[in-house]
């Protein structure tokens, strides 16, 4: 071997290192090598074949055929020569070869004669062993055999090299894996540490329990045992239902089933302590799953919320009681209103009627007294009711346009007599640029002015009471209305000034005796003003007079058309005769209205309740209905519903009610009433309303919107436009056709129903759907009718649907009419 510049020793060290790197020495026999040795023996036709490796002292056989020894000392080997050369070493007759003729294997009996071997050279070119064949007789290998031996050697070294590489790769892979595992482990440790910290924190402040999937308690922490009053050992092993009351035990099955299926649950729960007392907890139940998604245990984290829950329950209970009481109070107010006002109404009404007759002075002065007492009583009741309503938050401020001067004139009309009786100068002055019409609550303004001006008259014995009204600011857009009421009366002392707006206080304790009044008026006025966003203040000097100022935010009403709207006007010249039905159970009120009507062209029929009223309406034609709300048998609400939906009547209906709340009026209108009058009413007000509705019902007017009525348009011209390509004449023709056709269809259906012909009724409904579809009308009722008819129902099942359809048609026709009018325009 050419060793170049390196020493032989150095080379030998490298060779040995290389040999060791394969890790083949002293390993067990392996079939792969055994097979190769076998192959060598067969190919070369020798009794012995060996694959061996040579270290510094020995030749070790990895695979052998025809050889008993495991290894031999290097001095005794043939192969030490073989590894020193690149090519095959062949010794045809060992006894004749100088290199080996003295070898004990040769010299012994039946010793080695033939040897052929080739070195196993690694990729680095270092010989680490041999493949060799041995025979006991001299011979020669032919060329193919030699070639085969070379190939076998090459195979052997390949096998070794591949193994070595695999091992190295395996090791590298192992290293990489190990590193990854370490990293993951590190991460896991970190997570676990975090989790433990979190869990510790949870455990410190919460009750923590672990359950088996079946619901048996596996562990509890100290907090939980403190919460429940059990010792830890008492709970472990018990079923969780030990903490439930009987009712919850029954309900808990489903809950636990869902937990068992892996669902997270949380919420507020009721539990029982050991002593049987109730414990409320806020808890979460988290099922813990194994890698096969099986629930292995359930962890519960709980907080004691017993105190909070008790407070909450107590609060809820208190609130409910308060709400109930409040509702009772509201009802009480409404009832009181009715019960007190009705008789007062009768007293004042009859007195008015008597006063209209020219009775002798003796009677009329007493009647005046009764009237005054009645009025006062009414004011008192109104004051009390107002106050209750304000207290209950029921008072609503209206936002309707009204004439400012008219309101003031009304007040002066009412108080002028009183002022004149005391010989007082009584007048008002309007500043420049005051808006003619404003939006607000006229009645509330009148109430405030009557109170303040009434007080001024009451406490002034000579001199003047004066109202001044101006804009604030005086020029430009007014934002506030500024009222000043000044008098030359007895005045109020400084100490009392702060008190007069309080409830039930009058300046002097004997004021009430001397001047009368409830002591509520100013308080109510202040509340009313403040509720509207205004303010009130007073200046006074005893003996000189007082000066009340108040300010209200002002919204100007601009719409001119309102100016043309009919105003209260009892002297309308051409009063029409009309038939009026009044539904009223109270005999006094009946008689009162009867007498009110005595000098009018109206003919009045009476019904004592809603049912009687409906019967009369069904049998006779009426131009107008006056409807009391509180009646026995059938009240006004039920009656109006029946009038609008069952009788399909659009007769104007005016509600007469003792409730003077805004909400009440809204309810009446929403149910289909046309108007509303609060008792007690003035004769003029009633007659004006009647006249208005008699005149207006003859004009085309919107059908009243029924409760639950649809907001969306009833008709859509989309289809017709698509079909006609926007041809207006054709659309008009179709709309007229729709009107006539649907009207006829409805008549036909009614006839079919009367004749029990449901098949044709259903067919007609079906057919009408196409027409309805063309105008985009709602098909629901027709579909109901069609389905109903196919089921052979009782006529009284069909009737309401047909009625509803008639109602729908009326509205549709109204819309059609509007559209047709638009086309004309």
């Amino acid at each position: 071997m050419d060793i170049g510049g390196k020493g032989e020793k150095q080379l030998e060290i490298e060779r040995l290192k290389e040999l060791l790197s394969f890790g083949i020495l002293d390993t067990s026999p392996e079939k792969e090598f055994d097979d190769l040795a076998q192959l060598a023996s067969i190919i070369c036709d020798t009794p012995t074949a060996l694959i061996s490796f040579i270290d510094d002292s020995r030749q070790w056989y990895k695979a052998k055929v025809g050889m008993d020894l495991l290894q031999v000392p290097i001095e005794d080997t043939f192969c030490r020569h073989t590894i020193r050369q690149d090519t095959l070493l062949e010794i045809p007759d060992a006894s004749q070869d100088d290199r080996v003729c003295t070898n004990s294997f040769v010299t012994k009996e039946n010793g080695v004669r033939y040897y052929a071997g080739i070195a196993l050279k690694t990729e680095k070119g270092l010989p680490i062993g041999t493949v060799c064949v041995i025979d006991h007789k001299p011979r020669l290998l032919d060329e193919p055999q030699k070639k085969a031996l070379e190939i076998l050697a090459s195979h052997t070294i390949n096998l070794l090299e591949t193994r070595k590489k695999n091992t190295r790769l395996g090791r590298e892979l192992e290293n990489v894996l190990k590193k990854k595992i370490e990293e993951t482990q590190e991460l896991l440790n970190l997570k676990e540490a975090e989790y433990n910290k979190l869990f510790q924190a949870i455990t410190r402040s919460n009750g923590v329990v672990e359950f088996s999937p079946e619901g048996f308690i596996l562990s509890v922490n100290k907090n939980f045992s403190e919460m429940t009053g059990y010792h830890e050992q008492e709970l472990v092993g018990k079923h969780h239902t030990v903490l439930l009351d009987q009712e919850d035990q029954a309900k808990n099955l489903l809950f636990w089933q869902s937990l068992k299926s892996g669902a997270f649950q949380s919420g507020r729960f009721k539990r029982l302590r050991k002593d049987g007392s109730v414990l409320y907890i806020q808890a979460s139940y988290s099922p813990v799953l194994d890698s096969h998604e099986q629930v292995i245990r359930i962890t519960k984290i709980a907080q004691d919320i017993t105190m909070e829950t008790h407070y909450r329950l107590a609060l809820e209970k208190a609130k409910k009681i308060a709400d109930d009481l409040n509702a009772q109070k509201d009802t009480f107010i409404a009832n009181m209103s009715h019960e007190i006002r009705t008789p007062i109404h009768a007293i004042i009404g009859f007195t008015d009627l008597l006063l209209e007759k020219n009775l002798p002075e003796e009677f009329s002065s007493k009647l005046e007294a009764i009237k005054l007492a009645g009025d006062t009583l009414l004011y008192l009741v109104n004051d009390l009711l107002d106050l209750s309503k304000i207290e209950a938050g029921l008072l609503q401020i209206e936002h309707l346009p009204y004439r400012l001067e008219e309101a003031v004139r009304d007040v002066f009309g009412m108080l002028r007599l009183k002022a004149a009786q005391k010989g007082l100068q009584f007048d008002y002055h309007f500043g420049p640029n005051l808006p003619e019409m404003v939006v607000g609550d006229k009645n509330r303004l009148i109430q405030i002015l009557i109170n303040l001006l009434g007080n001024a008259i009451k406490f002034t014995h000579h001199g003047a009471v004066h109202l001044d009204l101006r804009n604030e600011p005086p020029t430009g857009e007014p934002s506030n209305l500024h009222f000043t009421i000044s008098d030359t009366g007895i005045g109020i002392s400084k100490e009392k000034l702060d008190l007069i707006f309080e409830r039930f206080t009058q300046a002097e304790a004997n004021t009430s005796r001397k001047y009368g009044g409830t002591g509520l008026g100013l308080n109510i006025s202040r509340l009313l003003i403040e509720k509207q966003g205004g303010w009130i203040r007073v200046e006074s000097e005893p003996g000189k007079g007082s000066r009340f100022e108040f300010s209200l935010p002002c919204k100007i009403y601009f719409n001119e058309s309102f100016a043309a709207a009919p105003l209260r006007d009892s002297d309308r010249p051409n009063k029409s005769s009309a038939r009026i039905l009044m539904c009223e159970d109270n005999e006094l009120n009946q008689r009162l209205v009867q007498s009110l009507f005595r000098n009018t062209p109206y003919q009045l029929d009476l019904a004592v309740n809603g049912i009687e009223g409906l019967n009369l309406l069904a049998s006779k034609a009426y131009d107008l209905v006056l409807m009391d709300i509180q009646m026995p048998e059938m009240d006004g609400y039920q009656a109006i519903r029946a009038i609008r939906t069952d009788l399909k009547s659009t007769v104007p209906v005016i509600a007469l009610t003792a409730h003077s709340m805004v909400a009440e009026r809204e309810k009446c209108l929403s149910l289909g009433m046309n108007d509303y009058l609060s008792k007690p009413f003035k004769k003029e007000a009633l007659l004006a309303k009647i006249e208005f509705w008699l005149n207006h019902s003859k004009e085309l007017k919107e059908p009243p919107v029924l409760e639950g009525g649809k907001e969306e348009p009833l008709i859509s011209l989309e289809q017709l436009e698509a079909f006609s390509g926007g041809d207006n004449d054709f659309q008009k023709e179709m709309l007229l056709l729709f009107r006539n056709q649907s009207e006829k269809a409805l008549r036909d259906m009614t006839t079919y129903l009367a004749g029990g012909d449901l098949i044709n009724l259903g067919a007609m409904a079906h057919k009408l759907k196409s027409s309805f579809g063309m105008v985009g009308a709602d098909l629901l009722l027709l579909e109901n009718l069609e389905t109903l008819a196919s089921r052979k129902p009782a006529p009284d099942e069909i009737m309401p649907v047909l009625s509803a359809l008639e109602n729908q048609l009326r509205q549709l026709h109204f819309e059609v009419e509007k559209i047709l009018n638009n086309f004309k325009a």
Partner: protein
Amino acid sequence: MKVVLIEDDEMLRKSLSFFLKSKGHEVVEFENGLDPIDYIRKNYADISIIVTDLNLPFAGGRQVIHATRQIKDADIQIIVLTSSGVESTELEVFELGADDFISKPFSPAVLLKRIEKLTST
């Protein structure tokens, strides 16, 4: 193209007729199911498409379809106007021998598209 239109609701029939005529088609209207059967038997060679309702007086749309399908040599497409409610299912419409159907209420433009599609093939 000649369209036979059979619909008992006067409004829908007139509108549809107006619409189809405005699109340049010849429309023959019928308000019952009996008269068109006779008409179709005599004029089948000229008719491209029949648009028919199912619920009709005297004879239903089914009879119209059936009678049309009995005529040999006739190449007539049929579209059925169905409506939601207690009427036949769409499948039934095809089993009757119709080529297409359209549910009421429908857009005339969509019906026109279907007519054009059927008659172009």
